[in-house]
Each structure stands twice: as structure tokens, then as C-alpha cells.
């Protein structure tokens, strides 16, 4: 099928502004500035049904409409702190099509009447940050950024800001605190960022991919966009597939595409028989192979299957992988990334890891399984930000689907595989 989001990936020098313009870039921006009032753009994006691609799936246009009327300055922050294990789609867009992102940011900023936008990119993406900085400089030179953009009278500053190694900064309020020059502790909500965000001013935070979709919606219209995907999960989505498949990578598919189409037709099929699939990034509950045949990749179907679409990061885990070891590693990750502000997440992730570690190292007790579940229950919904909950998915789902393997590990004091 025709590519949109990835249309420039693989084109030589796709990150250069001339190449981008030569391929029709910045046309949507011109159209947006000429033909739309900001509010009309908000309505358009709302009509398109575009949902946040960072993981939570909140409708972008609705989020924009939460901005309090008449309060300025407003900020827009592009969340490029891609950190959910298994996810690497934003990196591909940033490195190969930085102008596509910038165009999306400018249009969205215009829609939200923002005068200063930021791209918060994770610190490890040094290459991506350099590409973005260069692209931003080029966009300034050509008048797509700065004062009076394309003669429209609209002004916008865009600043690329690097994180420095912290997963929790991908959480939108953690990101804001970090951008404010502080430790990336999430902030109290309410007030929500739309009313008091960056520097306590109204702020819109959208994921790279979300913003990347906007120019296409402007160019082709909401109806066109809704023509992709399902009724409740409209549009195009990038899926990053990794793990035990033959052709891991990023693929663009309409939402609602069958899981097995992604695995077999795009990712070249599994490299080992599938033991489990983590469908939306490491925090989403893993699924057993038997549900995969009928599973489609959209928000609703994955929720119905007991998991989440998340960031669209499909991790295929083949036979021969020790689930306990895998979950222990993820528990270690969440413990490492807990910011420490709230007790359930700080202490809970530490405890969960210690128990997993003990089981993995042959010191498990059968009662540990119920203990793990009870600790998960004690964290669930009680932590300050979603990180606490994110840590639970791998544990609860693995116990649900692989309890026997846990028991084997505990009783035999070794791996089943």
C-alpha cells in the first residue's frame, strides 16, 4: 500500500529541506496558514479522530480543545522522549524525516495559537537531535519558523531540547518538569498541562507520531484520514516490531490490521515458534499465541484481549525464552526508572524486582506468586504517575499466562527452557 508516514524514509537525503520540499513538503503548512483559522484546524483534527500515538491514545483534537480561551502565552511540546522498550518509530521519523515532524509541529502550534514550541528528544538520540537541530535551522532560514511564517503574520519559535536519560520524562508532566530544568518528577494533576503546563502556562504535549500525522490530515482531509483504520481507531499507525522475527523494523499500517499480517507479511514471520507477544511496548500485558490469529491492531481489539495498543511496539518472544528471566529484566527496568517521588512505585518496583530476582536465581517460594500479585494490586492505581502501573503489566500477565513456568522455576530452582 501507499506509504504516508514513512513516505520519505529510504529516500536519499530525506532529512534535507530541499529534498523534503521537492517531495511536496511544507505544502500542508502553506494550506493550513492560508485556508484555516486555528479553531478550524482544531476541529479538523478532532473530526479526523486522530488519537495520541504515544501510548495513551487520547484524541488529539479533543486535547487541543482543552486549552483555556484567551490565555497566552501557550506552549506546544513535542514528546520525542521515546523510551518505552521495544519502541523506535519516532527515532526513524526524526532521523529520516525531521521536516515532516517540524511541519506537523508548526501546523499544530498554529492551530493551538502557540508562540513557542519545543521538541523534547531523549538524550541518547544524539544523531536525531543533530538532524532535528539542523532541520530547524533550515526551516528558520526558509521562513517556515520565526516571524511572519510564509507571510501569514503567524510567528513561532521552535527549540530542540535534549533529555539526559530518564524514562519517566516520557510521562507528559515529568517531561515538562525536566524541560523546566528540574528533575523529571511528574507534576500534580490537576492542574492539567492544557491549563497550567510548561512554566505554568497552557501547554499541549503530543507525541512525535501524532504531530507527524497532522500535515496529512490537513492535506487530505478528515474524511480521507478516517478512511484508514476502524471506526473507533481511525488512521495510520507505525508499528515497531522486534524480537524473534525475521525482519524487525518499523512498518506503517492502518489501525485494525491483523497482528499476524504484521508479523508474517511485513516482519518476515517469526524466527522461532511464538511463545508470547508483547503488543504495545514493554509495559503492555503479554498475550498468549492462541489469541494472535484473530487479533487486530487497534485500541479496542487489544483492550478486549486484555492488553493495550500502547506505542505500537510489538515484541515477539519465541519459544526457548525464559519468561521469568524476561520479566525479571523488565522489573529491573521499571525499578531503575522509578523517579522515587511516590512510595508505591519507589518501594514497590524495588520489591517486585527483588522477588523476581530471587525466583530467577532459584530462591523462589510458591507463595511468592501470590505475593507478587498482591504487591501489584497495592501499586495499581496508587502511584503518582502511570509508571507504577506500567511496571505491573509484564508481571501480572506473565503470571496469568505462564504460572506453570513460574512454579517450575520455583520448584526446580531452574529455568523450564
Amino acid at each position, binding site marked *: 500500500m501507499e506509504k504516508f508516514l514513512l513516505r520519505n524514509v529510504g529516500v536519499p537525503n530525506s532529512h534535507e529541506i530541499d529534498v523534503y520540499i521537492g517531495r511536496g513538503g511544507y505544502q500542508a503548512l502553506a494550506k493550513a496558514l492560508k485556508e484555516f483559522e486555528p479553531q478550524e484546524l482544531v476541529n479538523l483534527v478532532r473530526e479526523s479522530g486522530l488519537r495520541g500515538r504515544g501510548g495513551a491514545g487520547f484524541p488529539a483534537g479533543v486535547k487541543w480543545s482543552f486549552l483555556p480561551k484567551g490565555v497566552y502565552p501557550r506552549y506546544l511540546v513535542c514528546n520525542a522522549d521515546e523510551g518505552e522498550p521495544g519502541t523506535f518509530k519516532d527515532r526513524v521519523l526524526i532521523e529520516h524525516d525531521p521536516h515532516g515532524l517540524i511541519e506537523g509541529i508548526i501546523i499544530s502550534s498554529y492551530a493551538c495559537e502557540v508562540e513557542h514550541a519545543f521538541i523534547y528528544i531523549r538524550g541518547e538520540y544524539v544523531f536525531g537531535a543533530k538532524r532535528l537541530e539542523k532541520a530547524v535551522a533550515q526551516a528558520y532560514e526558509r521562513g517556515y519558523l520565526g516571524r511572519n511564517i510564509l507571510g501569514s503574520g503567524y510567528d513561532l519559535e521552535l527549540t530542540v531540547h535534549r533529555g539526559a536519560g*530518564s524514562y519517566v520524562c516520557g510521562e507528559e508532566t515529568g517531561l515538562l518538569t525536566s524541560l523546566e530544568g528540574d*528533575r523529571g518528577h511528574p507534576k*500534580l494533576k490537576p492542574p492539567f498541562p492544557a491549563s497550567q503546563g510548561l512554566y505554568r502556562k497552557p501547554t499541549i504535549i503530543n507525541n512525535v507520531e501524532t504531530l507527524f500525522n497532522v500535515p496529512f490530515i490537513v492535506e487530505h482531509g478528515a474524511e480521507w484520514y478516517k478512511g484508514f483504520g476502524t471506526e473507533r481507531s481511525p488512521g495510520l499507525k507505525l508499528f515497531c516490531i522486534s524480537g524473534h522475527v525475521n525482519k524487525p523494523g518499523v512498518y506503517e499500517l492502518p489501525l485494525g490490521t491483523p497482528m499476524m499480517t504484521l508479523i508474517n507479511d511485513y516482519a518476515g514471520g517469526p524466527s522461532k515458534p511464538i511463545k508470547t507477544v508483547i503488543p504495545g511496548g514493554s509495559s503492555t500485558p503479554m498475550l498468549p499465541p492462541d489469541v494472535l490469529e484473530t487479533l487486530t491492531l487497534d485500541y479496542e481489539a487489544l483492550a478486549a484481549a486484555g492488553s493495550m495498543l500502547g506505542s505500537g511496539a510489538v515484541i515477539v518472544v519465541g519459544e526457548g525464552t525464559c519468561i521469568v528471566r524476561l520479566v525479571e529484566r523488565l522489573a529491573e527496568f521499571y*525499578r*531503575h*526508572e*522509578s*523517579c*522515587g*517521588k*511516590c*512510595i*508505591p512505585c*519507589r*518501594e*514497590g*518496583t*524495588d*520489591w517486585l524486582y*527483588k*522477588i523476581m530476582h*530471587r525466583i530467577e536465581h532459584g530462591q523462589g517460594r510458591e507463595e511468592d506468586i501470590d*505475593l507478587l500479585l498482591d504487591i501489584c494490586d*497495592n501499586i495499581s*492505581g*496508587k*502511584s*503518582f504517575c502511570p509508571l507504577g502501573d506500567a511496571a505491573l503489566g509484564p508481571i501480572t500477565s506473565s503470571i496469568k499466562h505462564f504460572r506453570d513456568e513460574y512454579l517450575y522455576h520455583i520448584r526446580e530452582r531452574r529455568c523450564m527452557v
Partner: protein
Amino acid sequence: MEPLVTLTIDDREVTVPAGTTVLNAAKSVGIEIPTLCYYEKLAPFGGCRICLVEIEKMRGLQTACTTVVRPDMVVRTASPEVLKTRKAILEFLLTNHPLDCPVCDKGGECDLQDFVFKWGPTESRYIEEKRHKRKAYALSPLIVKDEERCVLCRRCVRYLEEWADDLQLDYFERGRLTRVDTFPGQPFDSVFSGNTIDICPVGALTSRVFRFRARSWELEKVPSVCAYCGVGCNITLDVKTNKLRRISGRENPAVNDGWLCDKGRFAHQYIDSPERITRPLVRKDGELRPASWDEALNLVSQRLREIVRESGPRSVGGVGSATVTNEAAYLFQKFVRTVLGTNNVDHLGRLPDGARPLPSMTEVREADAILLFGADTLEEAPVIELFIRRAANLKGTKVIVANPRRINLTRYGGPWLAYRPGTEVALLNGLAHVILAEGLHKEGRRVAELKEWVKDYPPDKVEEITAVPAETLREAARVLTEAQKAVLIYGPDTVRGPNGQACLTALNNLALLIGAHEPGCLAQEPNSWGVLDMGLAPHLYPGRQRLDDKVRERLGKRWKAQLPSEAGLGLDEMLKAALDGELEALYIMAANPAMDHPIGDEALEKLKFLVVQDLFLTETAQLADVVLPAASFAEADGTFTNMAGRVQRLHQALRPLAEVKPHGQIIVDLARVMGQEIGATMPLEHYSPQAVMEEIARVAAPYEGLSYGSLGDDGIPVTTEGGTRRFAQADFRPPATDAAYPLALVTGRLLYDRSPLFARSEIMRQLVPEPFVEINPADAETLRIADQDAVTVSSARDSLELRARVSDDIRPGCVFVPLHLNEMPVVALSEAGAAVTWVKVTKR
């Protein structure tokens, strides 16, 4: 009035003002929801999650500390899910808590301990190894940190952020490794550090002074008032076995709001100092030797009588101090007037006539602009500094600093008027000039007259006189006039000396012009106002009544005594008279003029007879013929009147050591020996401060109706009459200069100094800096003086040997020498009554 909201909490209907949190709504009907990170004086944090409650129609549990009530909300604080969560949070904390409660100073007053007792798990499911972090290390000479006990509620950090505006502690690392610490290798250096102990919910931050001195439940808690500065912070004295173990802040929103400075909190060990005088001393063969009370009092009685008989009552006098209670001060002046028969009575550091108390603390805290004239709240009234910092930090309150020396509050950029000493009146007239010239003043009568009086002080000329740039002066004027609630505060030295009254007048003019409250004096002693109210001054009777015939007659009747009609001598005059041989005997109560008065030393040596009652053998006491051991503030009952005119009660917490007696009691006993009752004794002849207060309430009008009963624990403000407020002419007289001594001496107190009590408080005294003279780099360069050089500071009168501290904190042309750091009195450099002391600095 806020609209009210009605909601349901645990099946009870609760009505509270809109904007109340669920936590406080529950508290208002006595429903307890535990909290750790929440602290009512700090912005909500929401981190500990222990206050999670169930609210109908809301997904998941909600933090009660951050959720604001809404009409018809239905809250459950004890549902099975809430209780399970609460237990879980406590279990999470306990997984890595050291459980070293048996050796924890917080034991018995630890929130975590109490919460676990009420809601926690009864057994541990945690079998892993606990995390180990640093135990019991010194964050500073005063504070001990235990990282394992810390629950990371961030109260201490938030307090430093929001109140002290001095972020010396912060989180380090993250997640499970998070700890609260200082910058690597740097001690926690703040005069507000002790408050973090009070607000720490666990034993993570503890006091090195209190460490292992008692278990909290053994302590008897006695409400009292701090006896160090004029703020009058409310404190609790924690006592065990007749020893003061700890001082902590006591809630009183009208005063310190629970906060303390470290001096008030930690510097109390002087009470137990082995240097305390515990028995009367009498000079025999040139040496002070222990004696019985009978012997000492008889000797005092006999000698005073002799001298009065031989040289008349004018030849004796009494010098008190503003560090004693109202009751003691009242009895002292009564003793001098009725028993000795003279009005020669005064105290050290008396505030000049016309000085007015600070407006209430609430007004200071709510001000949107503060002018601090010749005062440094950090050194002289730290808790007020804390309030001002908070206001400047969180509300943007402007702080205009008029001071030749940079103080901490200049950091708020408010602006800083670094005037030349002696030019205060010109500066103030200049401010009035700008306000009038720019038409910024509030309407007022007689403005035209004032305009005329200040017409010679345009900004350019004021710049020439004061060295304050014209633009800075204009900015200050604008800031003052733009404020809705400006407060003017001045240091007592500003309104002393030959220009003092003119300065006061000019300050009053300024306040009137901008429609502000009367300017208030930052009184430095704990009872500066009270002792004046008690008549501890030659020209004032109790209630600040002037010494006219009518009052004298009325008072004489009440006191059943013939009161002297002759005007009395003030302290300066008494000491001069002593030098001249006209004053032969002095009775000194808790004052140290040998150190604190320019001629104290020489004058006292000339006396025929000197009696001193005090805690220590001060420089003054060493010159005495009889020394009487007096009680500390914790060993006697009484009241202080703070710098805002609030009368507050001190409760006796300790039995005095050995033969020590309260100041008031000594006076009563002496009077009796001398054959006169001066009242206020109980049938059993025990001194009764309560009865003294009853007498004061009858005699001193502002205190009318006051009693220990009515004072309660929070005290009562008394207002002494101020005069009618009107503009008046404030004449500026340029200070005389002396080419041989080109530098103007600026002196001031430091919070930590070598004054008698502080210098005898262990642990704290190591924080006292070495004596120094601060000199501007420009002057230092001219004089070829480098930082830390040994130098001599000399005036026409005397000289001091000090270390140079080269810093632009002091303006050029001035040097700053702190008081009470030296063995030598700094005041000896000054001519009594000179507007400016001129000195020179030479390298040794």
C-alpha cells in the same frame, strides 16, 4: 466569605468553605486521615500516597491532601480498599525502614511509628535484604541525618525552598536510591536548619544537641517564649529531671507560626554551664568569694544605705536590661524609686522616645513591600527574615534595603540603598522629595509644608550626600508607592544618637506620604518594649507615664511611698557621673555595660560600690563588690513584650540551680532586708510574678486587665499610645568628618556571637566567627590590605586588633565590625553621642 460546600465523609455530612481539601474537611469533623508528605505550611506534594481515599464517581483512589471538595461528594476514608492501601503504603515503607526505633530520637513522636501502630501490617512479608544507606552522619554541627529512616516526603526540601528560600538540601539519585542530602561535601549551613527537625515526620533529621538526651515520652512540656531576640518566638521547653533537654517551636500564628531560628532552638546549654554563678559572691580582700544570701544581701543593704545617707539618693542608681521579664523590670524600677529614692534608673539599649513597635506579624507577612532601614533581620530577628523571604520568594514582595552593608535580603533586588553612615535623614528626605515631585503620594494634609521642607533634597543632590544613585532612589520611591501594603521597619540604632529623632521624623513622614502603617522598630532584646512599659527609664513611670506631679502623687499612694521628684539620670549620664565621682553606687541587673557601653569599663571601676545580679561572671560582674546569682528565663515565671507589643508568658520549667534566684525574687528579698515591702509577695513570702502582673495591670494603663489567666498560651497584644501622625520637619545635619580617620564605622549584631549566654552554649558556640573587620576591596587596595590580614582599627578614642575581611558587602568608605565577637568592646571606639564613629585601618 468563601461559599460553603457540603459533602459526605464516612456517612457524615460535612460543610466546609469551598476550596478546602478532602483532608481538611475530614479533619474538621475529627476524621483522621494519615499523611506523611503533606504539611499544612507547605504546598501539596501528593507523593506519599498514604492519604488515598475513595470518592464516589471518581476512578481509583484519590489523595485527600490534594483533592478539593465538591458539592455532594461522597468520600470514604475507611473502606476496605482504603484500609488495604494504607496498610500497603506502610508495608512498602517498612520494607526498607531500619526499624531502629529503640535508638531513634524520634521514637514516641514519630508519625510512621504511630501510623503503623494504627493501620500498619502486623507481620512482615518482606524477606529480602533491606537497602543500606548512610546512618547517623552529621549534616552540620547541629543536624544529624539518617538516610535509612528517611521516607523521602521532601518536607525539609520543600520548606527550604518555600520558606527559607535557601535550597541547601535536595533529592539526589532517583528511584529506590533517592536520598536527601546537601551538595557534595558541603555542610547544611543555615540559621533555619533546625526547623527541618520539627517537620521531619520520622527520625531522619535529628538534633545533635538533643541526641540521646531523653525519650520523648519522658519529657515534660512547658510552653514558653524565646529569650534571645525581640520576635518572642513561642517555644516548648522539654524538660526531664530538672534539665532542659530540648527546645522546639510552638504554634502561634500571631508570632512565629511554629518556626524557630537555630539560635533559639539550640543555644540553651548555657543553662547547664559549669560557669553559672550558683551562690552569692562578695568581694573580700580584692577577691570575689562565696557568701550566704543573708551575708550578701545585708552587705548590699548596708552599703547602699550608707551611700544614700552620706551622698544622697542622687549618688546611687540602677541599671537593668531588656533581657529580663516585665515583672522583674517593674520590681527593679520600683525598688530604685521607692527604696533607694531616686529616678536614676535605666537599662542598656533603651529604645529612643518616639520609637514604635512593629505592626502585627500578620501585617509584616502580608506586606507587598518592606523597607528595612538600618536593620538586618537575618542577624537580629531571624524568624521575621523567614517570613520576608517567603513573601519575597512566593508572592514577589519587594524588599527595599537601606543599609551601608549588603544583607541577605538585598538578593531580591528590591532595591538596595547603600547610604553613607550619617546621611540617613537626607536619604529619607530624598525619598519624600521624589514621591512628592512625581506626584506619587497618597492624599494627605500639610503636604505643601512637607514639600517645602524637603525641597532641598532632589535626587541628584541626595546622591552627592548619601552616595545612593539618583535612579536607585527613584526606583525605591516607586516601589514604595506602588505597594498596597507597605511596611517600614528600622533598626534601633538608626533612630539613636544625635540624628535619631530627625530620622524618626523623616521615617514617619515617608510612611504618611505612602499611606503606610507607622514605621516599626526592630527591637533587639526579648523585652525591649516591656521594660519601657514597666518604667525602667529615668523619665518614665510604668505605663510610660511621664514623671509629672500628678502621676507621682497617684503612684506614690499606690506604692505607699514618697517618690523622688527630681529628674533621674539615664545610663549615659549615670556612667558619666560615675566617672566624675558624683555617682557612687550602681545596682546592675543582667546587663554588661563594661562591654556594651563606650565608657562602661572605666566608669564602673570608679564606683565605690557595685552590685551585679546575673547568670555569669561577666566583665561587669567581675568589677562588682557583690554578685548575686540569677535565674535564666527557663527558671522563672514572667512575661515578655515582643517587638510587636505582644505580651507573652514564660513558664518556669526548671527549679533554679543551688542558690540561684529569679531576678524579681532577688529584688523583693533585698527590699525586705532593707526594711521595705515592695509588694508582690505571697503570704509565705515567696515571690509571685503573677501577683506582680496583677499590680502592673493596675498601674500601667496599657496592661490594664491583663493577668496570667487572660494571657493564655498565645499572649495578648498591648498598644501603647502613639502620638498624632503628622508631617514634621526633619533636619539633616552633615556628620562631622575627621581627615585622620577617613572610614565610617558600621557596627551590628551577628546572630551567633560571644555574648554571655550564646558563648556558653556548647555546640552552638563553635559556629561563632572569629572577630573581623569587613572592608571594601576599593579601600583595601588603597590601604594595601589583603583578605585575612591582621589589622588595627583605631578611632580617636581606642583601637581594636582584628582580621580583615575584604568584601564588597560593605560599601566603600565604611568598615563593618560586628559587635560581641571580641574580648574588647567594639563600642569603646565610639564617642558616646557621636553620629558617626570615624576610624582608620592599618595593617599590623
